[in-house]
């Protein structure tokens, strides 16, 4: 057996995960981008994206996802999301008010590119929520490893 199979769950779970992880990730992006049209948005989409990373860890065990997305970078991405959100709100001050929708104030129902800064804010929220949630997950993994090593 290759080294890959030493950790994590059975081959069935690994195969299914390999097939679905990309789809889950894409679905998260879909939810974020359609946040202003359909139920969902930055928060829900961010959680789904974080879940796709967590799936990798659960199926393949240990720190597979940490190679793609380390704990340090989750902090940076999270802060970037928050700064982006705040910056969009502050740019509004120049056009008439805090959180002023300066790009497209009226909007067309059903159109993807129509809601001005709302989709951009959704993207910022998804970065913050997704990275934040995944960061918490990684911290818990590290904590568990630390405790099992102590035993």
């Amino acid at each position, binding site marked *: 057996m290759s080294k890959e199979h030493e950790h994590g769950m059975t081959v069935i779970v690994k195969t299914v995960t390999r097939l679905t992880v990309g789809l889950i990730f894409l679905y998260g992006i879909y939810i974020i981008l359609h946040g202003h049209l359909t139920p969902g948005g930055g928060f829900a989409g961010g959680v789904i994206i974080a879940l796709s990373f967590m799936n990798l860890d659960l199926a393949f065990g240990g720190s597979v996802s940490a190679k793609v997305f380390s704990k340090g970078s989750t902090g*940076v991405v999270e802060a970037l999301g928050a*700064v982006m959100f*705040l910056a969009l709100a*502050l740019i509004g*001050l120049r056009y008439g*008010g*805090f959180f*002023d929708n300066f790009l497209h104030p009226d909007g067309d129902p059903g159109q993807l590119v129509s809601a001005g800064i709302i989709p951009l804010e959704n993207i910022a929220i998804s970065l913050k929520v997704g990275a934040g949630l995944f960061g918490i997950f990684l911290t818990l993994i590290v904590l568990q490893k630390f405790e099992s090593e102590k035993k």
Partner: protein
Amino acid sequence: MISENIIPLFVAIPLAGAFLTVLFKRIKGIPDTLGVMASAGAFALSILFVLKMEIGQRIIYNVGNWGGFQEVLGKIVGIQLVVDGLTTFMLVTVNLIAFLVAVYSISYMTRYTEKWQFYSLFLLMLAGMNGVLITGDMFNLFVFVEIASLASYALVAFGTEKRELEASFKYAVMGGIASLLILLGVIFLYSNTGTLNMGNMAKILDSSEEPVLIYLVFGLFLAGFGLKAAIIPFHAWLPDAHPSAPAPISAMLSGVLIKALGVYTLVRVFYCVFGFPEQVSSIFMTLGALSMIIAVLLALKQWDMKRLLAYHSISQIGYIILGFGIGSHLGIMGGLLHLFNHSVFKSLLFLNAGSLEYATGTRNLKEMGGLTKQMPVTSWTTLSASMSISGVPPFAGFWSKLIIILACIERGLWFYAIIAVLASILTLASFMKVTRYAFLGDIRKKLRNVVEVPVPMRIVMIILAIMCIFGGVLLLPGVRQGFLDQAVEVLSGVRGV
């Protein structure tokens, strides 16, 4: 006139500081600089408001600039930020202490690792508090209360020792219950009035004949905000949580957090939304008197300096609540002035305790002694803060306590006046103990090599001590009109006194 676009900056500046700190944590000196600059910026803006606001002026700011959609069916749906006299008063208090604490932390927090986490959480807490002060929307108030509380839970556990984690957990559970009660109250109010805007709510409640539901909301808010303010039946978490945090954070928690999240919200909701009914007035006075006397009795037997100070916080909050409970012009003025004074002297006392711990490594009064020679600045500033909190003339605390006691006598409430005087005497007794055991007497052998704390910490303590000595200046006619009177006006206008 003052540009209303400044109002959201009270939240935006600390928030930006918090997240930029996380982004640039690796660059040396950035967390300190951002922490001090963001709090200094917010403080400068609050001073600007005091100077530029006209008497009785109220600035309303519509977030999001919704134009014609701001009002639907006669009810305001967008979030409004409101700045009036009371708000500016609180903004100055909170941001002044935050700025000084940020400067103090530059040296103090070198004892801990991960300084950037400290400054990031500190600024988040400041953003939450400023948000609570400027919002005019009930649900928004709840959200900002949560932001400030969550940051403070993490800060209490900052040392990550067993004791600190336990205190933080207890604090988080009690804070969670408080938030739940507040949210429930907001839900009932919304279902009853159909709006979340405080101004709208007050009008609708004023014109409707008092439904039973309102009394339920009274109870929920009293318990919820009372837990945040730690008045006596709801105080159990405070003596654990406040001493466990790093000293600058203890200063913030006891100095301003319980006032912004507890006292201010209680006063804002019960005065400005409910019009301060008679029943609430007597509840405020009873709880205030209970807090004053019980907490000071509990404080007398403490040997851990920070725990002793934490009990005194509950006691002093009792004075403030009593002042607001009386509800007369004099009572409100005394309450507000004592709120400001308490912010100053209690943060100073916690910073003093921090300095003692920084220099000697202990908080136990029994293990100190004779430190006046080694630490003159800490010693003298502690003395001035102790005199102020005990109400010795001519220190700041004397004037505010005097006004509260006079307000009691003016209303014929002799019983409360006597309790206030008694609690003040007991406070003096317990601070004489602090002075005696920490600073007077013979120096211990192992404390011979103790030296005074670094310069930034000293400067902050001296500034606060000067404010303790000359705090009475706020009552002089010229100074009073711009600052204190405006805040009193907002509250006393509600009752027409």
